[in-house]
């Protein structure tokens, strides 16, 4: 299964991955409209980490043995049969945050201003290549299959 990986050496901390993740998950999918009208209910699904010159984007790993799937009490966290991605059905999520507690990568965030549900990367479900990977200006993010 293809996952998103990051080459720390080439991440330039521009955070365009966050911008395009947010736009991809907006209603309008238009960057200016999404930011001017739909925000602040929107948030990017990946977590961005930065310390000094080191930085990288941290999207969900879609683990083969995902602790969040064990932890979810509503069945909102589920694995998509076709893509094997771990997805969160935000309509079912009640915001118990067990997944936030279980994820060792801290990849799940709480969308407090919007859906009040758990928010995480969904590999841009339905798209051929995730938006963050497609728009990374320095090819720091790649979408490929690796042995895990």
């Amino acid at each position, binding site marked *: 299964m293809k996952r998103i*990986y*990051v*080459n*720390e*050496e080439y991440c330039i901390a521009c955070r365009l991955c966050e911008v395009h993740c947010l736009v991809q998950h907006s209603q309008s999918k238009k960057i200016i409209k999404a930011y001017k009208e739909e925000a602040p209910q929107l948030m990017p699904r990946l*977590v961005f*980490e*930065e*310390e000094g010159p*080191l*930085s*990288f984007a*941290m999207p969900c*790993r879609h683990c083969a043995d995902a*602790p969040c*799937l*064990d*932890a*979810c*009490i*509503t*069945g909102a966290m589920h694995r998509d049969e076709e893509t094997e991605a771990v997805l969160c059905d935000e309509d*079912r999520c*009640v*915001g*118990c*945050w*067990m*997944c*936030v*507690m*279980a*994820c*060792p*990568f*801290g990849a*799940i*965030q*709480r969308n407090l201003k919007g859906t009040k549900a758990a928010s995480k990367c969904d590999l841009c479900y339905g798209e051929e290549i995730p938006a963050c990977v497609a728009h990374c200006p320095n090819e720091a993010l*790649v979408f490929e299959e*690796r*042995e*895990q």
Partner: protein
Amino acid sequence: MRYVIIGNSAAAVSAIEAIRQHDAENPITVISDETHHVYSRPLVCHLLGELVDEDRMHYRPLDFYEQHQVEPMLGVRATAIDTQAKTVLLAGGGSVPYDRLLLAVGGKPFVPPVEGIDLDGVFTFTKWEDAQKIDRYIKDNDVQSALIVGGGLIGMKAVKALMARGLQLTVVELADRILSTSFDHTASKLAESILRRAGAEVITGTTVKEIVGKEGRIDHAVLQDGEKVNCDLVIFGIGVRPNLDLILPEPERQTGIRVNRGIVVDEHMRTSVEDVYAAGDCVETYDMILEVERPIAIWPHATRQGHVAGCNMAGVEKTYAGGFPMNSEDIAGVPTIAVGLTDPQEHEDEYEIIEKYDRAALTYKRLVLRRDRLVGAICVGDIDRAGIYTGLIRDQVDVTPFKEHLLSGSFGLISLPKEYRKHIVVGEGIIV
């Protein structure tokens, strides 16, 4: 080859899914004394608090049994297990033979012998049925106030539900502070002040002695020190014990299944009797931090244990390494997370504590280290990415290189040595 599962909750469901991953043909029978289709027990408090509707209680689709070719026997109570004849005996006289049996019978709420517990209006709070009864009682009796006995996690769930219903609440806790098993002193006191700020009354260091009724309804409760608490409703949320009804008392039952505080299982979730497995809140397993066997009744562990049991039942070897307590609970709207050993009481010189308490923002973080490894974490208010601490505890990572960063605002995988994020990074010299 017939699989029989007694129980219909977390461990049972993941056992079914695990069995079907490896065995698509042999029949599975589920026996449950509840009439409901698969539902999430943790959501019972949300149901009572009218935060979810009945549809969301089902955490698997309604065709789950058909999809997984399971024969459900709902509303049927198992009364005994004949491990010699390999049959499960049912109330009403029937029996179900098994080749492999899984005991996923969960826990039973602990109710102390208090005078007046048989009155209408006194409830425990673990099952869907409980929520329905309490809901009906509230509506029929115009309940205004409630007493919650037990200031632990179950008590907090009751608080959440009834606060959402707008009731006036009093919480009574026997220990000197609420949440004494998952929080430390500071976190407990912070939680108490949060509850009080939200309008609840919190009484610690005592418990209920007597519940007094009037005209068939509850009038008030009397605490051990004589204090009177006015209430229309009493919820007992003291604790849950592993349900050992099918095994105990030993001499009469004669199942041969070894129990301690919970059903004793090995790392394959096998009991002492061949072809009998157990998983979930009814077992005791290895606590990785305290290094003892004990029951840890937590939803993710039940799910994982059920999965392991199901794999082994289907002939695929899988082991369960053990677990540690982990809870996420919101207290009057303030999120909290407690993982592992949060308040060591013995050998205190072995432990190192790091804390950060922001009184203005009402956030508190506490980390417990033992031999330079994280063994416990508490987060009140600011729970973002708390799972990273869980991962550090589980993997017993040596935190010396980044100890000063553990509580910083920007703490994340970036603070860890590169090997720890090898699953996500690529580049020269990184071996995934």
